[in-house]
């Protein structure tokens, strides 16, 4: 019996080895197989030709991906417009203004270098055009696809002077190569715009900059290029070209729990909870007590702008306009070489490794639009503000980058204004440093009134922080909040052990403890004294 089974198993081993040998021979015979896609676009005959422009490529894409343009047309990435379902405010990049470069009205050619389209150079852009959808902005895998400001979202296909008359030659890119190598969106695709919001690397968000193109674990535990290596779309998972996650209707409190395959789940897939559930702390379950009131981001993003790229913390447009002795624009840099003053933009403050500010946030984001009344005497104008309170059952404590600035407004009409900044013309502020002309053109383009008077008003914008998630070892230590002057010192409506105490109870409590002590000591001293007397009496 034993011999038979031994033989049998020896036979099995031999058969296994034979199989391995044959199998490896088979593998060696086949060509390298791509496993991350079913289509190698470089093999498609539709792409085997020279392309002359962006729309030229798009037409080729649409010959197979027949629904793609229509899908993109429905998105914020295309429309730059968003009708807020609750407030009814018409938002989106096309409508809102901010306290960075302020507004895109009359500045389309520059701003739309980040539009997923071609040719949006003024308000007359045709949003129904299919061939003007830019597929490459999100699907380039070569890294050579660039859309410089000033060309209304078009890439440079042939060498050209840009800006015209500057003498600077921008080299044309090989758009045919780009077209043949399209693939899934990477961090670089999203980052080519979202890392550079506000006009430069890391300027706007603080938690999104070029350091996230290939971050280490310390900077982002999910995107860690040598670890989990998430792309943006791993969390911002969408379908039909509609990318999940929104700054206009963010999910402040996700009550849905982790998503499950097959379950019809319409909730935002980009939240932490959508993967981690609302009770994610397995080792120290006590931490789950925090998840009802504190956004994951509050503890797990201890600081933003951690990747070595500074973010702008303030922008004072009222300081813009300086000229040197020769009448030229002035640029001043800090010790690290970062610009802190520009004649065309004003004065900046930069920050790295910035501790966020914290607010109750229920997901409501409201905007002050150029049609809303603004009064300088009210103090600071909040260009956007976050709804939330400790008691509404919808709010969590969130980390926020508060961006502070000073920007032009119309003191007669009492509105914020949309100046014409970018543009190689006689009215663009960045060229001529004249406010009233620039604002007149910008407001006219936006179809808004302008009195001709210019003043400056202090503004604030609120940017909830959600990227640059640190590894758990680097999450906030307890005492960052559980202490008298911790990070949540200004947060009302929640009892934080270590921060809060009822002063009456404390006074009374230490009082009776002290009373006991004093009483005991007094009693003891009297006993000692009486004993001496007693002993004297006995001895005497």
């Amino acid at each position, binding site marked *: 019996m034993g011999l038979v089974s031994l033989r049998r198993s020896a036979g099995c081993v031999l058969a296994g080895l034979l199989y391995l040998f044959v199998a490896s021979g088979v593998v060696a015979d086949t060509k390298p197989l791509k496993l991350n896609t079913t289509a190698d676009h470089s093999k498609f005959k539709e792409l085997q030709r020279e392309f002359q422009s962006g729309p030229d490529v798009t037409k080729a894409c649409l010959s197979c991906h027949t629904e793609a343009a229509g899908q993109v047309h429905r998105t914020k990435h295309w429309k730059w417009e968003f009708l807020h379902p609750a407030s009814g405010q018409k938002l989106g990049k096309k409508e809102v203004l901010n306290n960075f470069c302020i507004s895109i009205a009359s500045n389309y050619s520059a701003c739309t270098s980040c539009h997923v389209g071609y040719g949006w150079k003024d308000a007359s852009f045709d949003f129904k055009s299919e061939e003007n959808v830019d597929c490459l902005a999100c699907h380039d895998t070569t890294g050579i696809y660039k859309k410089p400001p000033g060309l209304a979202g078009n890439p440079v296909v042939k060498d050209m002077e840009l800006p015209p008359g500057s003498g600077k030659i921008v080299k044309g890119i090989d758009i045919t190569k780009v077209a043949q190598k399209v693939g899934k969106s990477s961090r670089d695709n999203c980052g080519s715009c979202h890392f550079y919001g506000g006009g430069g690397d890391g300027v706007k968000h603080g938690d999104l900059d070029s350091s996230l193109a290939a971050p280490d674990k310390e900077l982002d535990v999910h995107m860690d290029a040598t670890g989990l290596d998430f792309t943006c779309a791993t969390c911002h998972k969408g379908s039909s070209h509609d990318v999940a996650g929104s700054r206009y209707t963010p999910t402040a409190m996700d009550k849905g729990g982790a998503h499950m395959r097959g379950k019809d789940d319409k909730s935002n897939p980009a939240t932490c909870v959508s993967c981690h559930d609302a*009770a994610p702390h397995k080792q120290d*379950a*006590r931490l*789950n*007590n925090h998840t*009802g009131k504190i956004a994951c981001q509050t503890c797990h993003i201890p600081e933003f702008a951690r990747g070595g790229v500074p973010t702008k913390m303030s922008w004072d447009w009222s300081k813009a306009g300086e000229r040197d002795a020769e009448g030229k624009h002035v640029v001043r840099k800090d010790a690290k070489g970062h610009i802190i003053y520009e004649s065309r933009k004003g004065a900046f403050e930069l920050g790295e490794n910035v501790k966020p500010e914290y607010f109750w946030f229920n997901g409501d984001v409201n905007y002050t639009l150029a049609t809303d009344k603004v009064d300088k005497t009210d103090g600071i104008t909040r260009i956007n503000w976050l709804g939330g309170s400790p008691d509404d059952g919808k709010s969590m404590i969130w980390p926020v980058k508060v961006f502070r600035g000073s920007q032009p407004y119309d003191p007669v009409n009492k509105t914020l204004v949309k100046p014409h900044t970018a543009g190689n013309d006689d009215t663009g502020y960045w060229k001529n440093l004249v406010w009233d002309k620039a604002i007149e053109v910008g407001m006219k383009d936006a179809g808004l009134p302008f009195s001709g008077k210019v003043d400056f008003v202090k503004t604030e914008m609120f940017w909830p922080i959600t990227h640059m998630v640190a590894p758990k070892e680097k999450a906030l*230590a*307890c*005492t960052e909040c*559980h*202490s*008298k002057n911790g990070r949540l010192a200004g947060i009302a409506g*929640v*009892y934080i*052990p*270590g*921060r*809060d*105490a*009822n002063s009456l*109870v*404390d006074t*009374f*409590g*230490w009082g*009776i*403890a002290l*009373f*006991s*002590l004093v*009483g*005991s*000591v007094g*009693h*003891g001293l*009297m*006993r000692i004294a*009486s*004993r001496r007397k*007693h002993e004297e009496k006995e001895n005497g």
Partner: protein
Amino acid sequence: MVERVYIFKGFERFWHWSQAALIMFMMLTGFEIHGSYALFGFEKAVGYHGIAAWTLIGLWVFAIFWHLTTGEWRHYIPTMEKVLVVAQYYSSGIFKHEPHPFKPSQLNKHNPLQRLTYLGVLLFVSPLIWITGWLYLFYGNWMAWGLTSLKLEWVATGHTIGAFLMLAFFVSHLYLVTTGHTVTAHIKAMITGWEEVESSDAANAQAGTEKSLNNQPWSPS
């Protein structure tokens, strides 16, 4: 003349000292959590406080069992008898070197003031700390338990009040330990079980209470 009386049994002494250690440790960690000082660091303090709490709960399970099965719980039945006499002793007699009006025995370990104090601790301070402490521990379950309108602030404040009362008790208790026949008589009793008492005319003072206790069926003969 000094007489030695066996008062505290083995388990009782173990209970007392382990509970004393736990409560002291919990006051130490608890007031750190409260924000009164920094010692272990908040995170460790919370961890230690929790471990000590569960240990104390375990100890209490045994202690309650012991008290119920041995009938020792009767030592905490309050009595007003001789309360004034004992109070008078501590407020004046003790200074005149008078003997203690109460003589402890196995049947009657605690003087009437002790009985009242310990009962107060048992009926008021402990439940306050325990109930709020449990709620604190299970904060994450409040929603599931339907405690939707409970506020952590109330629970924490109640817990803190309890802690302060315990601290005041602790301070007085530490001092009163020294008021025995000698300064160390009481503490020796809690270590060895044997209390030294002055036997002069204290027996009379004790007689009254002992009589009532002697009638109990559980009394050892």
